């Protein structure tokens, strides 16, 4: 019987090596492409009619659009509106990645820390660039909290620096740990169902409830990832 962690194994589908760099097309790459395609279809089909009174699909697109726009307005303010495409893309990519992973035999690419860390680094680098472009050298003032006594600076600056550098790691661990733990738990309970034979019905019921929770977690984690990206962006723009 497969280990519950077997589902996270990255398998090479099309081997491809350029020099010493391994550019193989893996199951992770396939599901990332499927996720991008699903987003394209979701937005394309939803906005095809562009009717004044939206239908079900158009409402779904509009709700997700307004959710992210409202989130940016609440957390960053009006100055953050120009970053809407960035946050919206990240939200949809993570959400569709999480939801695609809920399909049996599908691969959950958001359970790979290298991917979540890559996404978090993208946010981190973008936010740092925005901070420097907006405030220049004054962005370094961010590492000394406003109102803090000056004699505390030698302690506070290293602490704030470590806190700032730990952001991408914290952001990536949050998403990766949630997805990996949830999917492992589902597989463990599924194994119980097989092992318990006729009594396995109890774990089937439990697994059904857990799948519902996991769908909720899929939405929640995509939302949390976007909210934290917004908060980091707010720190860079509003400097507090």
């Amino acid at each position: 019987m497969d280990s519950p962690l077997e589902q996270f194994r990255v398998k090479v589908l099309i081997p491809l090596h350029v020099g010493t760099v391994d550019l193989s097309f893996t199951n992770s790459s396939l599901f990332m492409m499927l996720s991008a395609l699903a987003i394209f279809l979701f937005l394309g089909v939803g906005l095809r009619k562009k009717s004044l009174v939206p239908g079900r699909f158009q409402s779904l697109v509009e709700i997700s659009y307004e959710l992210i726009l409202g989130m940016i307005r609440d957390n960053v303010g009006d100055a953050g509106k120009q970053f809407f495409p960035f946050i919206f893309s990240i939200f949809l990519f993570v959400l569709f990645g999480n939801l695609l992973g809920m399909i049996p035999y599908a691969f959950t690419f958001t359970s790979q820390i290298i991917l979540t860390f890559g996404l978090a680094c993208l946010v981190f680098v973008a936010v740092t660039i925005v901070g420097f472009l907006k405030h220049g050298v004054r962005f370094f003032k961010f590492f000394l909290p406003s109102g803090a006594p000056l004699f505390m600076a030698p302690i506070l600056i290293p602490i704030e620096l470590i806190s700032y550098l730990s952001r991408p790691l914290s952001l990536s661990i949050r998403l990766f740990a949630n997805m990996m733990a949830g999917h492992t738990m589902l597989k463990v309970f599924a194994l119980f169902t097989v092992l318990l034979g006729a009594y396995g019905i109890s774990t089937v019921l439990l697994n059904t409830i857990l799948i519902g929770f996991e769908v909720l977690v899929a939405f929640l984690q995509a939302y949390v990832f976007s909210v934290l990206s917004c908060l980091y962006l707010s720190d860079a723009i509003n400097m507090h």
Partner: protein
Amino acid sequence: MHLQRLVVWLKKMTMKKNNPQTFQERLEKVQDDLVPRGSTHGATPFKSMAYGASCDMIAALVVGCGLGVMAESFFPLSPWGIILGFFLGAITGLFNVYKSLVKIGYGLEWDKVTTLIEKKKEMDNG
């Protein structure tokens, strides 16, 4: 009779809150929605805050130790680089938790801390 009145009053109240009837009310609601909002950090539910705090603590510890190891590879600090990095990371993790508590109103911001220190000094001086 009283029950009927109560039902009518409740209907009126809910209509006023959720569905602005007059044009003026609807206009005010739309204008209110269009007003640019400032940056407001909403309160986070405690469960997700606790999970976030644990992630923050682990990340700060890993980054602190990582910086310590990096410092050891550039300067002859072994083993003090990783020890100092570990402690700085741990302090940063706790400090992050404190900051998230301050955000939801359970702690003192730096301005208030400075004011308290100044008051204490004034009291000590007489």
